[in-house]
């Protein structure tokens, strides 16, 4: 300012130099300097140099102001960016830009990391991670510093103020320059009272201010010291806690999306439609119009027509094209332009393998001209021929070779092609193998007499249209089936599985200690689980409560996957996709009105036709589309239904109810063995145990005199015989098919316990009886060569291995073992960092009780 005035004065007092120079441009002075300006008078005038009245104020934002403040702050940040870009920003604005940079960088990073993730949940968690980190940066100082300080001292150490230029700053940001004038005496005194500063001291305001400053400096320091520890831990804990909610939210979103695409099948198909197949065919036709089609080209066509579909469909289409594109449907061939070179090359290669001298090979294999001449003379050139005619060509070729051999022998009498040795080898190698393998016929057969003429083009275009439509529709089905049932993370069924599995740990009241002890060894889990179920089964109330909770959780499939079975719309969709495609492919139109049947492809899509002319669907893609989803549902449901069945069986044993197969005319020792085996199998049996008809080390000479009933105490069988005599050498008894039959009946055929029945009815839990019946019949009737009589009805179950595997479900101990492991990891992590977070919060809050101590000055002496 002083510089400006000085400069002004110098210019004002100095007379303007008069120059005679003619000005290039006209200068018009529109403003003259103030006349009679006296700098001394101006400086003496106090109003001139008095600073402007401050317009700063403390920021007091209510909840209702937040949106307005947010918008204003955002506008300020935008202006800061603009001013920064133009080189006009101030320090405060530049500071704000740093925050914006952090956010932009963070978002870019989250977007990059999300792009590397496959599922919506993992993608979302990248952004949630960033958000939680930024949130932790502001939540920690609030929760651990600001609020406790306010409660303990009554001082808001993060009080903000707005300066005269409208810049929002922390009141205690710079302890050397605190704008105390923004606090009224009344406010300071009120804070002083809260700080228990005596009222009757001199300069009370100064003392209170000093105390406030001290508290703020101490807390700001504490903030800096703790933020590094707290922010990452807090952020991780937030993510950890947010995950289930985000998962549920995203699952609902995905399931709604899946339902929507299925409900609007036509629209969805249009959206998922692509002209790729049609374009493929058009390009192919453009490139190879009216040219001969060889095997390779037909293979390419098949691939083009089935792009995005499975390999078996490609094979079926290829087989159909081979047949359809040949002019009259018979096997006929033509000699392509490259055929002769290939014949010569193949022949030489074959003879080389047969260890004929190179010199002889070169001499006896006819050259191109020779073969061309022969083909022309014999009338094969440019004409199609069948397999019989092909044999003629081979004979003619053989004649040429013989001629060449003779010519060679006449010029090389020293080292001729010997009769019965090289001669036989040469002729045999070239002509006597199978047509499809011999070096010459192999080449000829690779060029069927098909050309890409108008007929072929029309057929291909029509098929391309059918396949495009089919692909679009099957895309909808695939997408729906994937989102709901696929064996991949975050599909509806996977989320349902995780949700139920997680809850089971709580329902069965596994303690962290139990999870820790069982995580390494499944067998330890088996024992623990048996004990747990036995305990539950022995208590009437506990059993009903637990079973009720399990059934309700399993029933939540309707909430998670939004369906408990394959929806009718999906089955309709399958029908609408496969049937029209099959019908269309059955009669593809050619220009002459001829109808062409792609029978292999049709069979692959919808299965062979039955006698009444309907598609059976057997071994078809159509079947697969349905069974894929069905099998996934079956596998998941069977696991949970098996758990219920296991609980029910333990309950029946605990209460000695509905166990006729165990009691019916058996000695007590065998009863004990049977009960033990069934209890174990119910908890840890795999399908291989069932298929091999259970391996049970038993006493081969049981006590046949004691027919008393087994005794159960607290759910556990009180054995009189089983395991009581360690000297008995136990063996499996393979001829005792009755033992197997009884075991199956006991586990799967005896009626469920009345308590189970009542819970099933009250929770509307469906499917248990179907599950039991299916396992009993389909798995129980499986044949096993080593135990031929072991079946429940008649040996010879029709169920496939996959069906049996899915039907049985996962063994309960394995299920709990897997969940336990996962739960342990989370618990361990939470324990470590939860403790650190908690301890840090405690130390931070407690240390604030020691802040702000200041010795008050002597009280003023009154009077």
């Amino acid at each position, binding site marked *: 300012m002083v510089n400006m005035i000085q400069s002004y004065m110098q210019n004002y007092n100095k007379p303007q130099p008069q120059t005679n120079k003619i000005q290039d441009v006209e*200068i018009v002075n529109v403003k003259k300097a103030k006349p009679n300006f006296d700098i001394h008078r101006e400086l003496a005038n106090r109003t001139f140099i008095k600073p402007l009245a401050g317009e700063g104020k403390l920021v007091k934002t209510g909840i209702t102001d937040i949106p307005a403040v947010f918008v204003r702050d955002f506008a300020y940040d935008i202006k800061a960016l603009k001013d920064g870009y133009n080189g006009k920003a101030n320090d405060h604005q530049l500071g704000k*830009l740093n925050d914006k940079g952090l956010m932009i960088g963070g978002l870019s990073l989250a977007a990059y990391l999300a792009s590397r993730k496959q599922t919506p949940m993992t993608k979302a968690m990248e952004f949630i991670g960033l958000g939680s980190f930024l949130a932790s940066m502001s939540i920690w100082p609030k929760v651990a510093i600001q609020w406790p300080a306010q409660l303990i001292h009554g001082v808001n150490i993060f009080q903000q103020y707005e300066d005269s230029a409208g810049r929002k700053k922390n009141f205690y940001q710079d*302890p050397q320059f605190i704008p105390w004038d923004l606090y009224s005496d009344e406010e300071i005194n009120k804070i002083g009272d809260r700080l228990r500063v005596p009222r009757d001291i001199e300069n009370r305001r100064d003392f209170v201010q000093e105390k406030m400053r001290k508290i703020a400096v101490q807390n700001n320091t504490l903030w800096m010291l703790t933020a*590094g520890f707290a922010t990452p831990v807090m952020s991780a804990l937030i993510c950890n806690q947010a995950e289930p909610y985000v998962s549920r939210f995203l699952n609902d979103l995905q399931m709604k999306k899946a339902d929507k695409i299925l409900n609007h099948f036509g629209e969805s198909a249009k959206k998922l439609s692509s002209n790729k197949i049609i374009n493929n065919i058009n390009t192919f036709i453009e490139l190879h119009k009216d040219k001969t089609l060889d095997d390779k080209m037909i293979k390419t066509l098949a691939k083009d027509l089935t792009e995005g579909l499975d390999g078996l469909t490609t094979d079926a289409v290829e087989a159909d094209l081979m047949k359809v594109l040949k002019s009259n449907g018979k096997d006929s061939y033509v000699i392509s332009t490259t055929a002769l070179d290939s014949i010569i090359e193949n022949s030489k290669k074959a003879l080389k393998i047969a260890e004929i001298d190179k010199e002889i090979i070169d001499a006896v294999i006819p050259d191109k001209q020779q073969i061309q001449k022969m083909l022309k003379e014999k009338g094969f050139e440019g004409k199609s021929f069948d397999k019989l005619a092909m044999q003629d060509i081979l004979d003619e070729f053989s004649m040429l070779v013989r001629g060449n051999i003779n010519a060679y022998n006449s010029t090389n009498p020293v080292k001729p092609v010997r009769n019965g040795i090289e001669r036989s080898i040469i002729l045999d190698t070239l002509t006597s193998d199978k047509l499809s393998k011999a070096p010459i016929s192999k080449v000829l057969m690779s060029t069927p007499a098909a050309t890409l003429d108008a007929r072929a083009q029309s057929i291909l275009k029509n098929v391309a249209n059918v396949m495009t439509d089919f692909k679009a529709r099957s895309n909808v089905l695939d997408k729906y089936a994937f989102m709901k049932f696929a064996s991949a993370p975050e599909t509806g069924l996977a989320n349902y599985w995780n949700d139920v599995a997680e809850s089971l740990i709580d329902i069965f009241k596994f303690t962290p200690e139990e999870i820790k002890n069982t995580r390494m060894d499944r067998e330890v889990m088996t024992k623990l689980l048996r004990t747990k179920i036995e305990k539950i089964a022995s208590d009437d109330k506990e059993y009903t409560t637990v079973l009720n909770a399990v059934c309700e959780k399993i029933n939540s499939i309707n909430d998670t996957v939004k369906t408990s079975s394959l929806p009718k719309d999906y089955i309709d969709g399958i029908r609408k996709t496969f049937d029209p495609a099959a019908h269309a492919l059955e009669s593809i139109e050619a220009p002459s009105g001829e109808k062409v049947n792609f029978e292999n492809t049709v069979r692959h899509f919808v299965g062979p036709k039955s006698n009444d002319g309907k598609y059976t669907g057997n071994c078809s893609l159509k079947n697969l589309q349905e069974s894929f989803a069905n099998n996934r549902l079956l596998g998941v449901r069977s696991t949970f239904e098996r758990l219920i069945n296991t609980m029910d069986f333990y309950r029946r044993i605990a209460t000695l109810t509905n166990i006729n197969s165990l009691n019916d005319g058996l000695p007590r020792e065998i009863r004990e063995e049977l009960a033990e085996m069934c209890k174990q199998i119910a908890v840890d049996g795999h399908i291989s145990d069932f298929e091999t008809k259970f391996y049970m080390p038993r006493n081969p000479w049981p006590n046949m005199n004691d027919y008393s009933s087994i005794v159960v105490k607290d759910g556990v069988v009180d054995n009189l015989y089983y395991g009581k005599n360690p000297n008995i050498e136990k063996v499996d008894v393979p001829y005792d098919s009755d033992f197997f039959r009884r075991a199956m009946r006991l586990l799967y055929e005896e009626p469920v316990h009345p308590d189970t029945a009542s819970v099933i009815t009250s929770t509307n839990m469906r499917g248990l009886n179907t599950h039991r019946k299916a396992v009993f019949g389909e798995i129980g009737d499986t044949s096993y060569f080593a135990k031929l009589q072991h079946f429940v009805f008649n040996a010879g179950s029709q169920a496939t291995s996959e069906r049996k595997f899915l039907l049985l479900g996962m063994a309960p101990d394995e299920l709990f073992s897997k969940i336990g492991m996962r739960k342990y*990891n989370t618990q361990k992590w939470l324990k470590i960092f939860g403790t650190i977070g908690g301890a840090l919060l405690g130390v931070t809050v407690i240390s604030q009780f020691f802040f702000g101590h200041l010795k008050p000055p002597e009280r003023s002496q009154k009077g």
Partner: protein
Amino acid sequence: MILPITNRNSVLKFSSNKREENSDNGEENKLPYTHDTVLKNNFSNRMRIGIDKLTNAMTVYPAKGLKGSKNANFYEFLTMGNVPYLVGSAMLMAVFNTANKYYMPFDKKAASSLGKRLALGVVFYGLAKNISKNFITQPVKWMTGVDTEQPYAKVQYELPESINDTDITSIEYHKVSESADFIRYDLMYGKEDNAKTRNEPYDKIAKKLGLGQNLNDSDQEAKPRIREIVIKSATAKNIISYLWAATGVGLAVQQCWDKFFNVATLKFWQGEKFAKSALTFVKTLGKSAADFYKGEGTGMSKYAGKALLGAAVLSTVAGVVNVMTSDIKPSKLDSADIIEKSRKYVVN
């Protein structure tokens, strides 16, 4: 002419002035500087300042802060701001890795592979954020002569904490242009011997900025432009450093680092092994850069790396270009050079 206000000729008797006062009687001086002193912006000075600030941030400043010292100031608060960065980085690494050892073998392997890469990401984030500032600072310094990171030692006079407190001077390390509102132009002058040497640094800057040579008052000409350069550089640095930091993390999360971690050792006393690790590190860094750029699969994941790198590079180039562009015209050029003679002008 009124000179800029400076403490250069200060006669205040504080401990920092003792060197001059006591040079005759040989009394040892506590502080290396007697007045605010510009320091060479070289590696050793930067290291020294960094270590000094870090040591203070972890010892002296927290002690002062926790006592609520009347001398605790904003500089100390800001310097302590480095503590959360360092502790937070270590903590973040711990969050990803500490619990892994308790997991089952397969989980452990998966978790520690991810954990190590994320820990490396934390390191790369910090390195890339700091190194990338040079992408603006260096070209700007080269093209304009203005070093926006020029450090200086500031002599701070404190209030005595008690009646016996005689040591009331401390040294703070600032940057000449750390405040866009109050750039320490006074520290940018040359030797006070005469007007020529005094303005020499400004002459150089003015020349590089195209403001002309042999100017009577190169300082007055250059100052507005320097301010503009400082602000534009700071803006660019504030944005791009985080984009480069994100790119750094992008490199660290590539799968190829798993192989490096399988063979790497930090045991520098095992010379040969450590040297091999260092070499593998460089190779893996190259591979990770290639993988990051190439991307994987299709769609977003294929182009995300290119997009992030592109954003960082483009914003850096735009930042430098913006710094070099200015509306500020030299005020004292010959009117013949800037006035179109055919037009009518109105001047104040």
